[in-house]
């Protein structure tokens, strides 16, 4: 397992100003679980990963890997990267071009303190390659592999030492869309099978949502929200998280009424909306109501019943195969909706939009 406490790392940029890349980050990855650091470029997720790997030396904090303190600013401990029991997959794969597939995967075994025989090494490499479905390619030069194969090679190399912790730095970002879909699935299956504690870094929310046990959304060096995929998706705690995960509609307004536990009415430009309120919000607070496009239901005639019904006009409708991306104009507000692929409308047509109160969440307005 991985334990990070109070991690701080600053850099000095070209002009001499200090940049706080990681600003007091703490989290825990339980044994055998898949934990993702998710966020936009510059949020500090990769720096955090590299601190855990030992490739960066943090300013303050504590990092424990499998019970060993690999870094502690309090005690001055610092274990260099090559002494940590980790496996790492880099964004660029970092495959050594002058070595064959076999030699690439065998490298960790050859430099380890434990001297293994050539046969033993060959056997272990064969096993590792088998795990990533690359058997039989041992004697090829590493540069002769395709992108997907190189990525799997990097994975095999990271796993051959049977480390206790696996670190992955945006491993799928250099693959094309179809391959990425497949690898998401395969990586997750592999991790489950091996039950290896995994820390994954990405800016792609689909990867995060589909693969992780727990997601930590990061922004500007801090963790903004931590939780399971569904939790993060359905109950974002800030505008930033709501915007970053999936696409979302945002409607500004003010709370006019509170009715019971976290429920209330918000007065907005498109009318009064019943929705869930985030903890701590009171009447009179300025809020932003967020609702996902796939939650909105469009009716061609005014429906008899349904919460939060608003009339509007179709601004655009794009057929995307899996769904129809429909934008609806209500006054000055444009709402994005996803309708079933059978939905057919024309531009300018009148529709009724239903915003189910259970799917509407009022978050503090951060503007």
């Amino acid at each position: 397992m991985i334990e990070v406490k109070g991690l701080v790392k600053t850099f000095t940029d070209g002009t001499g100003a200090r940049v706080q890349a990681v600003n007091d980050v703490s989290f825990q990855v339980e044994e055998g679980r898949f934990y993702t650091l998710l966020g936009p470029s510059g949020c500090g997720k990769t720096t955090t990963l590299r601190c855990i790997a030992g490739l960066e030396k943090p300013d303050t904090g504590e990092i424990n890997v499998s019970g060993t303190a690999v870094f502690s600013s309090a005690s001055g401990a610092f274990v260099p990267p090559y002494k940590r029991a980790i496996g790492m997959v880099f964004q660029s794969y970092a495959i050594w071009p002058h070595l064959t597939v076999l030699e690439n995967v065998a490298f960790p075994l050859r430099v380890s303190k434990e001297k293994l025989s050539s046969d033993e090494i060959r056997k272990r490499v064969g096993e590792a390659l088998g795990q990533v479905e690359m058997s039989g390619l041992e004697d090829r030069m590493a540069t002769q592999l395709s992108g997907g194969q190189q990525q799997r090679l990097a994975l095999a190399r990271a796993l051959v030492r049977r480390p206790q912790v696996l670190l992955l730095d945006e491993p799928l970002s250099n693959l094309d869309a179809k391959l990425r879909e497949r690898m998401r699935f395969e990586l997750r299956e592999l991790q489950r099978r091996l039950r290896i504690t995994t820390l994954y870094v990405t800016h792609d929310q689909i990867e995060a949502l589909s693969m992780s046990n727990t997601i930590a959304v990061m922004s500007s060096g801090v963790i903004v929200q931590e939780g399971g995929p569904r939790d993060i998706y359905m109950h974002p705690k800030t505008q930033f998280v709501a915007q970053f995960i999936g696409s979302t509609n945002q409607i500004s307004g003010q709370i006019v009424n509170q009715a019971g536990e976290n429920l209330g009415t918000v007065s907005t430009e498109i009318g009064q909306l019943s929705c869930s309120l985030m903890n701590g919000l009171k009447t009179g607070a300025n809020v932003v109501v967020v609702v996902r496009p796939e939650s909105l239901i469009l009716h061609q005639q005014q429906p008899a019943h349904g919460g939060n019904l608003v009339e509007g006009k179709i601004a655009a409708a794009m057929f995307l195969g899996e769904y129809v991306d429909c934008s609806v104009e209500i006054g000055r507000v444009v709402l994005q909706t996803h309708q079933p692929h059978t939905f057919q409308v024309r531009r300018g047509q009148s529709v009724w939009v239903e915003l189910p109160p259970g799917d509407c969440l009022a978050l503090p307005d951060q503007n």
Partner: protein
Amino acid sequence: MSTVAIPRSARFSFPQVRDPALLIPLVGAGVLIYLAVLPLFMLLLGSFQMEVAPREFVTTFKNYQAAYASEYTYSTFMNSLIFASGSAALGFFFGGVLAWLTERTNTPLRAIFVPIAVVPLILPGVLESIAWIFLLSPKFGYLNVWLMALFGLESPPFNVFSLPGMIWVHSVGQVPLAFLMMVAAFKSMDPSLEESAMMSGAGTLQTLKRVTLRLLMPTCGSVLLILFVRTLESFETPALIGIPARIYVYTSEIYLAFNEYPPDYGRGAALAVGLLLLSAVGVWMYTRSTRESKKFQTVTGKAFRPRQFDLGRWRWVGFGFLGTYFLLVVLLPFLVLLWASFLPFFAAPSWDAVQKLSLENYRYLNGFRPFWDAMKNSIILALMTATAAMLLTSIIAWIVYKSRLPGSWILDFLAFVPITVPGIVLGMALILLYVAFPVPIYGTIWVLLIAYLTRYIPYGMRAASGSILQIHSELEEAAATSGASWWETFRRVTLPLLRPGFAAGWIYICIVSFREFSTSVLLATGDSRVLSILLFTMFEQGQVTVVAAIGILMILTLLAIVTVFYKLSGHVGIQG
């Protein structure tokens, strides 16, 4: 511990900085300062002295007066200016046209021309000048004799002992460099830039004018600039052709100051300082202009083939140009040297002369002790310089680009200082240094080694840093996260990946050291003579055909070194 932000691709986290590690860049800086800066300092100092090893330091401007306010100042300046501009322009013209024909058109057989164009690099500058003297000398030059006979002319059409003659001979030696640079420029042109011009309605000629040439401008500027600076610094042609023709440029003036009796070191140093400044400005402008041209290069991850111009029937004209160039400029000088080496004395081709062909010169050289000494010195110096330079620069490149040791950028700067120093200026500076501080290496092969090493460190640095920068830091980081210590990573990952750059730098330095002339001319004496100096002195003494034989042997030796090297390394491609 404070950290310095360097772009991610350049940083790496080992070795951890402990105080003793700070010694490494200090030692490196010390070596570089000793090699690169100290001689220049002595040069500057010496230019203000009256004597070369003064007992008291008397500052005087007399030397500068002698150098820059004499009756010859104007003619030297004009000669140097015309010589340098003419060579730059002509070298650029040939290099550019040849590069364009081979890279951007469908001229037949252009693929084999690329290695052919580079072959003249094997020909040392001194030999190039000698060969053209054989061809274009007004009294005996083969081309003159032949043309006079053919057309019944009264006076020889070409006189190599003139400024145009100097320009021609020197340009021809510069064409390989111009060619390689223009080829690189053409190769890196993104075809979609021209294609979008054509899609916007521009015809071939318009595209050429508005897009192609505009994109090439910065590179053309750089090429012209570097050719200009290199001509200004050169001494082979000014020595062999200029001096007999009484056409003096800056480098010849420095040589002459040194060759007077007693040698006027002061004036020589003053001239050297002036030339150094000119050269430094030129190199600075060149660096600025290459930075500009980088902006015009499209860097994508995808490789592309530049568009070919279809010349139609004109492609045979292109072929004719390539063929003529090859025959006239590459083959002819070599053939003339070969021919002359078999003659007892210089004579035009005729049946009479054919009967006199013999191996006499070669037999003479076989027993000629100074030849073997010079050959030995040249080979030893070439091998030692190349090895020392590459080892030193590999370590320095690693310190500059891969370690996080503070202040390592100074090493990068110091390593490139010698590129602004003309060979003859360095020779002058080293003389002043070692006569003032009599370490007993003056007059031996060791001072030549130091001189060559100093001169070629920038080239070694370029090869080594190019290689080091290509080693993505994640390749070393992956080794660390796979359990390899610093030494294991260096041994198993860094060094093998450095090998191509190391090898390329090594062979290049080996070849240029073997050919070196302008530094050696002041430093090589008696025992420490090298082949290029031997050629020069024997040619001046009139033993021209023996010189041709030495030349052929030099070329063969170089070819042998290059062949052995390629066999051993199995790599291809020397990029200058």
